[in-house]
């Protein structure tokens, strides 16, 4: 089945610094989704990308889907303490089963 690799596993940043997490696959993906999970919480959907080269923005968050549809990135500009959590990429097949990456745990130091 499909697998998605995510790096880095952990990232510590000072508040105000930027943050990027990367998601890679050896196969072409039909879509990529991003979720955020706060400590002690559950995954919350952020966005879905389906088109080659697609870029979407949500305030300070920028999501990209690679031209070959094998990689994706999430970039946060000027991190805030509210950005703390684990960010997961995931992909869904025709049956809507999600395959998650291992996540990037973001710590924001005040």
């Amino acid at each position, binding site marked *: 089945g499909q697998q998605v690799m*995510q790096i880095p596993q952990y990232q510590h940043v000072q508040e105000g610094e930027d943050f990027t997490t990367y998601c890679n696959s050896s196969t072409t993906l039909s*879509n990529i*989704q991003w979720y955020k999970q706060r400590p002690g*919480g*559950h*995954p*919350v*959907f952020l966005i*879905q990308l*389906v088109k080659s080269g697609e870029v979407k923005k949500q305030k300070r968050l920028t999501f990209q889907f690679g031209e070959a549809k094998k990689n994706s990135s999430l970039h946060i500009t000027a991190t805030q303490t509210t950005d703390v959590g684990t960010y*997961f990429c*995931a992909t*869904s097949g025709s*049956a*809507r*089963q*999600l*395959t*998650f*990456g*291992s*996540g990037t745990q973001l710590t924001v130091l005040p």
Partner: protein
Amino acid sequence: DAGVTQSPTHLIKTRGQQVTLRCSPISGHKSVSWYQQVLGQGPQFIFQYYEKEERGRGNFPDRFSARQFPNYSSELNVNALLLGDSALYLCASSRPRGMNTEAFFGQGTRLTVV
């Protein structure tokens, strides 16, 4: 509108016991999926049900089973519990059709096997 609800929120069981976890999807959602999330890892797909039929099964042993009821709620059963079954069990529901496959997760059931 209520989100996905799961019960119980926490559970402690002994090795060898059986457990049943429950999930109610968002109103109007007919698809329910179950995921296991071990600490420090991403959720792993266990089952998906749609219109009361199993539509997908992940790489989990036969000790894991599930079902979906006419009102689209679902139960996940795990028999002969092992220590390694300790995890957060997440239920997710999704819209019945369309390109958007966004999953709405419940708060999860934290299972501890001792």
